[in-house]
């Protein structure tokens, strides 16, 4: 079986720099100047999963993103990893989209690509981290979907055996194709790009589609199509008094024990253990 696989990716500000994100006191907008834009880390696990399936069964891997025009750089990286073609959905009308409008637009883009067997998404983006686009995209596409997939194997031609996370455990599923999987970082280890990959990527197509290229209802796009609206933004003040404990390791250990005791934590001692034994007699 030759598989048609689509991977959704999102360009995000590099999470290693989030300590430097702030709110401009004048414009009240988030400033993230100087922070590089990368492929959302867990989306690379989606690309890797797609490439592995393609290597096993043959087929084609298409990466798609909804983003500003400069996202072609991130798409090139995905192509260099080994994806066959890329699609950028970019239009002012797509701006300000929440997860429902984003997943709608992605679904329309995937429709235009023309059929699929599997769609991969990352479980969540590093910046917004709502973790909602994957499940909502599955709904718009009208296919079975699962979120937080950390293990996957083909159990037959048209079916995958999949494991997803549960609280303190996991669930096992059979899911029929076509389907959508939101994958977690434990699923695999994304490959690095090679020099050959970069050279090959130069000849791979990147399509850029705007609103007029898609069969969309305008009122479902962007800000208009978003049931959630953003209100005020602020940075939480988490500062504490920061008293420094000094001295030898032993003195510091004593000071920590005293602080814990003062906070009402039960401090275990050898004496306690004796008295419990004594009490039991």
């Amino acid at each position, binding site marked *: 079986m030759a598989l048609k696989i689509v991977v959704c990716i999102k360009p995000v500000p590099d999470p290693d720099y989030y300590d430097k994100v702030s709110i401009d006191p004048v414009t009240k907008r988030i400033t993230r100047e100087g922070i590089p834009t990368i492929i959302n880390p867990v989306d690379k696990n989606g690309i890797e999963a797609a490439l592995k399936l393609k290597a096993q069964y043959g087929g084609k891997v298409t990466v798609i993103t909804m983003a500003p025009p400069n996202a072609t750089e991130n798409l090139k990286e995905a192509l260099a990893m080994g994806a066959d073609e890329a699609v950028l959905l970019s239009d002012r009308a797509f701006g300000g989209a929440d997860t429902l409008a984003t997943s709608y637009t992605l679904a329309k883009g995937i429709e235009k690509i023309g059929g699929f067997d599997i769609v991969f998404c990352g479980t969540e983006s590093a910046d917004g981290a709502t973790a909602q686009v994957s499940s909502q995209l599955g709904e718009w596409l009208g296919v079975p979907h699962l979120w937080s997939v950390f293990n996957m194997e083909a159990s037959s031609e048209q079916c995958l055996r999949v494991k997803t996370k549960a609280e303190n455990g996991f*669930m*096992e599923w059979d899911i029929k194709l076509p389907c959508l999987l939101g994958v977690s970082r434990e699923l695999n280890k994304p490959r690095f790009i090679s020099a050959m990959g970069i050279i090959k990527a130069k000849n791979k197509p990147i399509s850029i589609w705007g609103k007029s290229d898609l069969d969309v209802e305008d009122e479902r796009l962007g800000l208009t199509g978003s049931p959630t609206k953003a209100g005020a933004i602020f940075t939480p003040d988490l500062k504490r008094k920061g008293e420094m*404990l000094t001295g030898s390791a032993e003195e510091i250990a004593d000071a920590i024990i005293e602080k814990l005791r003062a906070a009402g934590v039960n401090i*275990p001692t050898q004496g306690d253990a004796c008295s419990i034994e004594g009490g039991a007699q």
Partner: protein
Amino acid sequence: MKKRIWVFAEYVNCTLDRVALELLTKAKELASGLTGETEVAAVLLGSRIGSTCKTLAEYGAEKIYLAESDELSLYNPMLYAPIIAELVQKEDPDIFLFGATAIGSELGPTVAAQLKTGVAAHCVDMRIDENEHLVASVPSFGGKILGEILCPDTRPQMASVKPGIFVQGEPEEGEAEIIRVDVSGIKADNLPLKALSLEKKEIEGVPLDKAEVVFCGGYGLGCKDCWEKLEKLAAIFGGAAACTRPVVDEGWAPGEHVMVGTSGKSIRPKAYVGFGISGATHHICGMKDSGLVINVNKDEKAAVFEVSDAGAVADLNKVLDQLILKLN
């Protein structure tokens, strides 16, 4: 018209997830901020429900929509979501809260997509504004920024909340009216998605969310031996050992169930003692509500000191050894 606040009561493996009780407590508080008649209700799906309805009533559910069937014994979004969406369309709640557990994180947005309404994801705070709208504060950029999210035009206004964010209230005597949802016709067979099994791991020691004191290790631990010291210290206290993402990635800690942060657990112990924690926003977001916060790190510039009540610039290995020596 009566304003309805609903809470999804996640019932897995014959156990009610405690986040439902935290959400019911919050729902009662939100109801008191609304004018006119209000009603807090729980939505419960599953099989062999036992005394769960009684528990939900004790924590504030005045009504319980109960969909009980053996076909629902294992969670399946293709069964659960349409039942819930249909119920919402019939009853028209104003607010609908989900726990952002592994299941809730999938089910909430799936139901919302079917209803074409909005979900504020992973709220850390909620209030009712002057227009009687739900205003939810959600973290972005790993918790560095908080943004308010509203859902002014569509109903219900949905929100998800991670376990441990809101405090569970005290149980009170209470009776809930039970509304049985007709699910006699549903069939798990023949769906393109089949749930085969649910495996639960036994958690060793004190669970992170129940520990009075948490000893937390960061990448600065440096090795698995140091993590084991941390576990030993936690065991001495009857507390729990926790960690940041790199400690899981390095394979020092047993897994994500002991990880604290935006993609891990949110905790609020009486005391938190960190060793080798840098203070990355992703982690701080999950422990900021702790009572006393102490940190030991050899890097005096570590950002974590700014969010600590007390700190020590020291070799954490030696401090750990001293603590174990003194208390064991």
